[in-house]
């Protein structure tokens, strides 16, 4: 993989090697700001690279099948991939973690599939290169959680086991941590209503 200057034709970085066999790279895509490149690889991984440094930005995005195409959300914070099993994956690119369960798109009425090779993002929708062009609404995955500041603080403390107050973080004791969890633990749906 290599990046070139379209005004001068000069290489802007050395060739960046990719793993896999001869036909290992199926797609490459610039991030919206042009600083990163997301690649779709035959070895079942998508890779987000800082092309100026030649380094990975987050862990490779692991799939069970070959990755055919990639797309960025408009803010560049999330990525979509489509694999050989006609499955769409949505990723948080700062961590390399999925933010939704993989979504399989059978392209025939009998449930079987013809391979989907492309995915593209338009606004908050993703369009798949399949018969009838299935559309995936991304807003339900990408919207901010509707939690109060207090709940977000409690979640942050639970996630880190640290007390977070006035922009500072300090360790929480096991008792405090358990008390926080006990206070925050979601109630059953019926009870909550």
């Amino acid at each position: 993989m290599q990046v070139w200057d379209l005004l001068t034709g000069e290489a802007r970085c050395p060739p960046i090697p990719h793993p896999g066999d001869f036909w290992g790279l199926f797609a490459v895509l610039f991030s919206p700001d042009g600083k990163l490149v997301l690649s779709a690889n035959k070895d079942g991984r998508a890779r987000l690279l800082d092309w100026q440094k030649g380094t990975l930005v987050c862990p490779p995005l692991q799939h069970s099948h070959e990755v055919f195409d990639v797309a960025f959300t408009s803010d560049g914070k999330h990525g979509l991939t489509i694999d050989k099993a006609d499955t769409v994956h949505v990723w948080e690119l700062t961590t390399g973690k999925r933010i939704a369960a993989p979504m399989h798109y059978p392209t025939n009425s009998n449930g079987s599939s013809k391979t989907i090779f492309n995915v593209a993002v338009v606004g908050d929708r993703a369009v798949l290169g399949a018969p009838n062009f299935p559309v995936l609404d991304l807003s339900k995955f990408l919207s901010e959680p509707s939690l109060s500041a207090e709940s977000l603080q409690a979640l942050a403390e639970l996630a880190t086991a640290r007390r977070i107050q006035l922009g500072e973080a300090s360790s929480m004791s096991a008792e405090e941590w358990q008390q926080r969890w006990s206070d925050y633990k979601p109630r059953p749906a019926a009870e909550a209503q």
Partner: protein
Amino acid sequence: MTWSPDGAALITVTTGGEVFVRDSESGRERFPPIQLRLKGGVCTASDISSDSRLLVTAITG
């Protein structure tokens, strides 16, 4: 073959591993073709940055 997002350039990639960048209005090549060959590989994918200044190529090999 693809247009740059600003429409000012037309980019073509040959099976021989060369990239031609032409000005849309004049049709003239902006510079000599970019040679993509790496270990005998060819270009399997490419993209242009949203500001139309950068081209990324994926080369086999």
